[in-house]
């Protein structure tokens, strides 16, 4: 049992440029999260949800270039309150190489007696239902599996306060459901205080006690009572058009990307059996499939970043025949991780580089100011790209790749970390550019809401095969 109390908390990131002082991310915030509750913390992207959680977890100001004033109090019966954190990026929470060693590492840190460690490791894995992963290499696990391991560690450490920073952003609905059920169980049976930060409110309502919204300026936390929260959840659900259907591609459509008996293998797992499949030209194709099914690997194979067997023909030329530099004039990839996309230091430099090599610089130059305004990036031109919030990075990343106007653009979870308003702006922008230049887009997204106006076709990767389907759910 533990409650979390914030008193007059202010968190301010230090600017890389000494002349510019950035406004505080969290500004004189006071609030209390009651003991034994499961709270959903929401707010627009960039409002400071991650920052707030990391501060409660005690990671800031120890790490990160941030100054913190005010206080975070965690009241608990035990002398040393344990605060656990699950991070947004499943790849960044482990120091060891295998699941078992990471769990042992955590328990050894807590000075659990050596002869009790193995039992506790097993108990935690059993609790989450992943005993089969015990001896696996962490690097070979899928995102969803990694988040389950992260939860098992939290269970093993018996932390009183559990903080989760958009933990489901890149995992499939089934894994998300499992994790939510386990978290609710921990909260109700073991009376853990749980705070989940997420901007995607879908399907949370049955699992949470309260809903809290962090205001845009990081100044206020608004607590919703049950009825008010219900209205917010309903409004969110209604704004998310989920049950739509699309047509199937015509057999005679010209193709942009063709798989000829292509297969994908990751470690010892076959992701795609030898498959022949076509992605039609000038269309927007949504690619879905459960977590770990190989969607990202497929996009990386098309861009030659992952190995594959067989042949992939892009814009009429087999990938193996492409000269390296020419291939990337035909096909681009919006990486899952925004940082991978950037090559320069500031926002302005990134935009300039794209405009320099764009296929249609005049078109984008003419609309750049409007786009930046709509995306909320207009005042950030001189900012260092790596200091932007997750949502801001995503918006900039998509913009600079659209400016290139590459005929075939692959997008790997481009909407992660965007709130509904940003999402609508980005979707409108993508659609504009796609129609203006008849681009072919192949897009992976778990987040389906707001995408309806964009999608032409829907391909599903399941059971090691690719198929087109009409329904999008």
């Amino acid at each position, binding site marked *: 049992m533990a409650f979390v109390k914030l008193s007059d908390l202010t968190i301010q990131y230090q600017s890389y440029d000494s002349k510019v002082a950035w406004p505080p991310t969290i500004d004189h915030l006071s609030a209390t999260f009651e003991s034994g509750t499961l709270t959903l913390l929401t707010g627009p992207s960039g409002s400071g949800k991650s920052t707030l959680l*990391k501060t409660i*977890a*005690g*990671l800031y100001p*120890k*790490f*990160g270039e941030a100054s913190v004033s005010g206080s975070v109090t965690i009241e608990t019966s035990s002398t040393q309150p*344990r605060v*656990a*954190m699950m*991070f947004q*990026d499943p790849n*960044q*929470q*482990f*120091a*060891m*190489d295998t699941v078992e*060693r*990471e769990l*042992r*590492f*955590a*328990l*050894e*840190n*807590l*000075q*659990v*007696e*050596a002869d009790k*460690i*193995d039992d506790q490791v097993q108990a935690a894995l059993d609790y989450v239902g992943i005993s089969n992963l015990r001896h696996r290499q962490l*690097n070979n696990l899928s995102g969803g599996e990694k988040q389950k391991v992260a939860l098992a*560690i939290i269970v093993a*450490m018996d932390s009183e306060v559990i903080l989760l920073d958009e933990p489901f952003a890149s995992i499939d609905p089934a894994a998300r459901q499992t994790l939510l059920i386990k978290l609710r169980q921990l909260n109700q049976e073991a009376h853990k205080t749980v705070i989940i930060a997420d901007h995607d409110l879908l399907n949370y309502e049955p699992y949470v006690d309260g809903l809290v919204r962090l205001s845009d300026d990081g100044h206020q936390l608004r607590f919703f009572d049950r009825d008010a929260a219900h209205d917010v959840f309903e409004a969110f659900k209604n704004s998310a058009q989920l049950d739509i259907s699309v047509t199937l591609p015509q057999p005679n459509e010209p193709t942009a990307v063709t798989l000829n008996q292509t297969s994908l293998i990751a470690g010892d797992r076959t992701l795609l059996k030898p498959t022949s499949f076509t992605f039609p030209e000038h269309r927007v194709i949504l690619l879905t499939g459960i977590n770990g099914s190989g969607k990202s690997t497929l996009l990386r194979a098309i*861009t*030659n*970043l992952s190995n594959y067997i067989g042949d992939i023909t892009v814009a009429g030329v087999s990938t193996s025949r492409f000269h390296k*530099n020419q*291939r*990337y004039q035909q096909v*681009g*990839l919006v*990486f899952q991780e925004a*940082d*991978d*996309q*950037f*090559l*320069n230091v500031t926002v302005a430099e990134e935009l300039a*580089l*794209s405009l*320099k*090599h764009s296929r249609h610089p005049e078109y984008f130059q003419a609309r750049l100011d409007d786009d930046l305004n709509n995306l909320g990036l207009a005042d950030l031109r001189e900012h260092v790209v*790596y200091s932007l919030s997750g949502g801001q990075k995503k918006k900039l990343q998509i913009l*600079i*790749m659209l400016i*290139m106007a*590459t005929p075939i653009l692959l997008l790997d979870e481009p909407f992660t970390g965007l709130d509904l308003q940003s999402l609508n702006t980005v979707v409108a922008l993508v659609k504009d550019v796609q129609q203006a230049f008849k681009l072919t887009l192949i897009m992976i997204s778990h987040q389906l809401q707001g995408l309806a106006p964009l999608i032409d076709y829907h391909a599903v990767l399941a059971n090691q095969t690719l198929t087109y389907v009409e329904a999008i759910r």
Partner: protein
Amino acid sequence: MNPTLKFVLAVLIALEISFTSSWTVNVILAVIGLVIILAARPGWKRLLSLIFWPLIPAVALAVAILMQSRSTGNTQFAIVLFTRIYAYVFIGSAATLTTPIYELVMSLEQNAHVPTKFAYGFLGGFNLMPKIVTEVKTIRVAALMRGETLHFWSPQLYFKAIIAALRWSENLAEAMTSHGFVEDAPRTHRVTVRIRSRDWIIAIGSLILLQGLLFGLHLA
């Protein structure tokens, strides 16, 4: 053998042959190293590269000595330097190839009492190695997709790589902290790594044998 003791032994042997000039001892050490390497069953590629790469500095050194001392005709010293390089490489590889990195770190922490921050930081860093290769490839492709070609001398490649490394190191530190790691705090150990008397006997015995060899050859 205990990993810490194994590495200390390898360093001591290397030090000792740096100050002696017996090519016979070098050859004997290289052969012993090679036998241990072969027993660890490395792949062909690794084995060939272990034999090939030292050839460059070894030949370069030997040729340099031969040219310099042609007047004095000191081929003896050239042979000593040539064999010494191989003794270094094979003894060093014999130690590294037979020790999983995880066991080395455990031993460094428990036997050598290296600060845990360094021991686990090193292990975490080591686990990032495969990511570095992927990262460099990703950076180059990201540049190509923006119309820029990065070569291995392009500063942008290094800038991005350093950015990535900084991000990883901070992530690693946050991950370790959130899993209960506190610098210099006491920890328990699921697996206790001991230095057994057998380890001491092998280490001290090897050193005595080496002295005997060197002394014996010196007399002869």
